[in-house]
């Protein structure tokens, strides 16, 4: 290894370590998750083995015989010689014999009933709740609702219960509460009509916002280009702020502008226009504001980049154009714009990627509404994986959504790299040793 390679890798390693650990590794994990059914219910870091009451009705479909299901279903707590012996060993023969007298041969559906039975002991009562809990456990003959940390423990338990051998494998699979690998996320995405609508929304969002960003950024750059420095700076500041203001705050300002009692409604009232929520009245309203909100953030990037490339154009060209009698529009159209091809192309491609994956402003503004009309793909990923009223977050499905974006993103960036002549971008360093 040459000294430069060593120095290069050394210089790269802190950033590399951070990016690999906290960015790349999560990306890889997300790709893996896309092929799982991970959700709140399954947990993230692994599961246990448990058959609960509601699982019973699912078991036949999972290939467990009715005989086994009946076994599992059997009463939870039984006062029978075996369990009484355990009880006697722990809490004394006299209690055991009293209980046998009271409830010998009885079965109880749940622990509460078992505890009630234990409370009936008179001669030497179990006074403490804790003792009754311990004692009740001794009479448990069912494994329903019991959680086993490992597969082996579960296997032992069902073997003890007498579940026939052929059923054990299927039962163990069904009892696992953790996530498993599956491709159903993708089948689901394919089947759901909403998926395609979100995809369409995403295209609409990216195209419209991009169009606004580029054209408006150009307009700002060109118009401030002609203005005196101070005036230009003021306008640039106005348009740069949206980019650096915290999104929560920035979107709130728009809410204030557009809601029923907001600024627009108040201004329109004297003209006899009924106050409406201008951001959410119809899908069209929502789209207009989504594009405006995101556009004002994105336009500043275009504005700055275009401004600096405008400054790089020699003034003499403008003088020449002026001498030729071109007005400003013509100057912009025929002299300036043709020289801005690369910055425009750059902004277009850079922001396509950014917009594809961004949803924060939509989340805060319309949350995808009204009627999911502004739900874009990235927002759907967020909603699926991290926001669900009922509490069951579908991480796997969310990851599948994200994976779709990632694939599109990689394809696009590969395309752009060809476009922008990657070879030149990574031109070999000129000091060779």
């Amino acid at each position, binding site marked *: 290894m040459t*000294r430069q390679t060593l120095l290069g890798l050394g210089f790269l390693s802190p950033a590399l370590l951070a990016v690999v650990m906290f960015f790349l590794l999560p990306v890889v994990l997300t790709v893996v998750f896309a092929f799982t059914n991970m959700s709140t219910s399954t947990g993230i870091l692994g599961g246990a083995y448990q058959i609960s009451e509601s699982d019973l009705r699912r078991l036949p479909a999972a290939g467990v015989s009715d005989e086994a299901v009946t076994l599992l279903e059997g009463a939870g707590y039984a006062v029978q010689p075996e369990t009484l012996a355990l009880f006697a060993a722990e809490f004394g023969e006299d209690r055991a014999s009293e209980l046998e007298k009271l409830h010998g041969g009885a079965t109880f559906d749940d622990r509460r009933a078992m505890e009630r039975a234990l409370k009936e002991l008179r001669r030497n009562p179990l006074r403490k709740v804790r003792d009754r809990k311990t004692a009740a456990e001794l009479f448990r003959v069912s494994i329903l609702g019991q959680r086993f940390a490992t597969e082996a423990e579960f296997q032992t338990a069902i073997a003890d219960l007498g579940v026939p051998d052929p059923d054990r494998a299927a039962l163990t699979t069904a009892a696992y509460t953790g996530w498993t690998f599956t491709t159903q996320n993708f089948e689901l995405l394919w089947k759901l009509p909403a998926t395609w609508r979100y995809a369409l929304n995403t295209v609409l969002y990216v195209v419209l916002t991009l169009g606004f960003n580029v054209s408006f950024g150009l307009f700002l750059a060109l118009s401030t280009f002609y203005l005196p420095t101070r005036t230009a700076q003021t306008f640039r500041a106005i348009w740069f702020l949206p980019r650096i203001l915290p999104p929560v705050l920035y979107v709130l300002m728009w809410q204030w502008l557009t809601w029923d009692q907001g600024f627009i409604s108040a201004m329109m009232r004297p003209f006899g226009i009924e106050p409406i929520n201008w951001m959410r009245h119809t899908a069209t309203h929502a789209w207009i504001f989504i594009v405006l909100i995101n556009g004002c953030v994105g336009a500043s990037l275009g504005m700055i980049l275009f401004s600096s490339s405008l400054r790089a154009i020699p003034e003499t060209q403008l003088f020449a154009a002026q001498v030729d009698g071109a007005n400003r529009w013509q100057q912009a159209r025929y002299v300036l714009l043709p020289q801005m091809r690369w910055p425009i192309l750059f902004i277009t491609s850079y922001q396509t990627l950014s917009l594809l994956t961004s949803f924060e402003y939509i989340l805060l503004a319309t949350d995808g509404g009204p009627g999911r009309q502004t739900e874009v793909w990235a927002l759907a990923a967020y909603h699926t994986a991290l926001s669900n009223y009922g509490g069951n977050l579908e991480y796997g499905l969310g990851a599948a959504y994200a994976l779709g974006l990632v694939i599109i993103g990689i394809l696009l960036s590969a395309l752009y790299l060809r476009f922008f002549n990657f070879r030149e971008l990574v031109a*070999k360093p*000129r*000091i*060779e*040793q």
Partner: protein
Amino acid sequence: MRIELQNFTKRFGDTTVIEDMSLSVASGEMVALLGPSGCGKSTTLFAISGIHRIDGGTLHFGDRDVTALPPQDRPVGVVFQNYALYPHMSVAENIGFPLKVQKLSSSEIKRRVSEMADLVQIGNLLSRKPQQLSGGQQQRVALARALVRKPDVLLLDEPLANLDAKLRLEMRSEIRRLQRETGITAILVTHDQIEAMSMCDRIALMKDGNIEQISTPSEMYERPASRYVAGFLGNPPISFLQAEANGQLALGGGNALALPNGITATGPVTLGVRPEHFGPQHRGSSVAGRVSFIEPQGREDLIDVILPDDQRLRAIVPAGHDITLGQEISWQVDLDRVHLFDAEGARL
């Protein structure tokens, strides 16, 4: 310190830029690498400096093999076209940087910096920042920085290209003075033949990664080894005529010249005639044609002559003549001074 570059080969990726080139520079000599852009002269310079790896061949400074040494370990000072002064450092810090790297004491650095500054005549500028200096001053700082650690070799990469015409003239002699005073071996890369001829002991003229000819400026001007060399040197440039050698030199349209002494070639040849060797004031074989253009230059005029077969010759004629545009003339060519090249362009 003698520089010996042998069988030097340089590749960038899959393309071979320079193959099997050899160059030898004597101790205390100043050699120009001259050629159009892309001919490999800068590549050669960077290879000598160590910035580029040498893919084949060897490089010796004196008896020492420096082929594999990194640039830091080579006793080389370089002056770049844009001077590459460190913008955040003062002139003194710029000049002192190589010494600081060598961990010299600050008093020693100070002494040598002021000594060097005096040598390049910028002693009064030491506390300034580079952007406060004129182009010529920056150039001097760059020279001082390159020389301060007393390298064995000085490499100059187009040092005058960024200067205006007047300064360029001044710095030309200044650089030569410094090189002579320090006795350092120097290589100058340039595309400007005047610079090369006026500053250097020898010129290596390069073309497509090869040295076409290496010799003293006058030797190269007077006895160019090839048509390419002849065409590259000289301002106004040499005129080339296509001719048929068959005991004499037959030009088209009835013109013919005698064969110069000692030439026995037959078949198609190229005849090179410098403007100063053609005109009414010369003696020798004459060529007839028509004056097509007169460009006054003050002391003398440039006159283009179009021959009957549409080939052109150019003449330098002292001012005060009475030649007019369109005039039919028959002027002499100084046959002792013309150059003949074969079909491949080699000198005959």
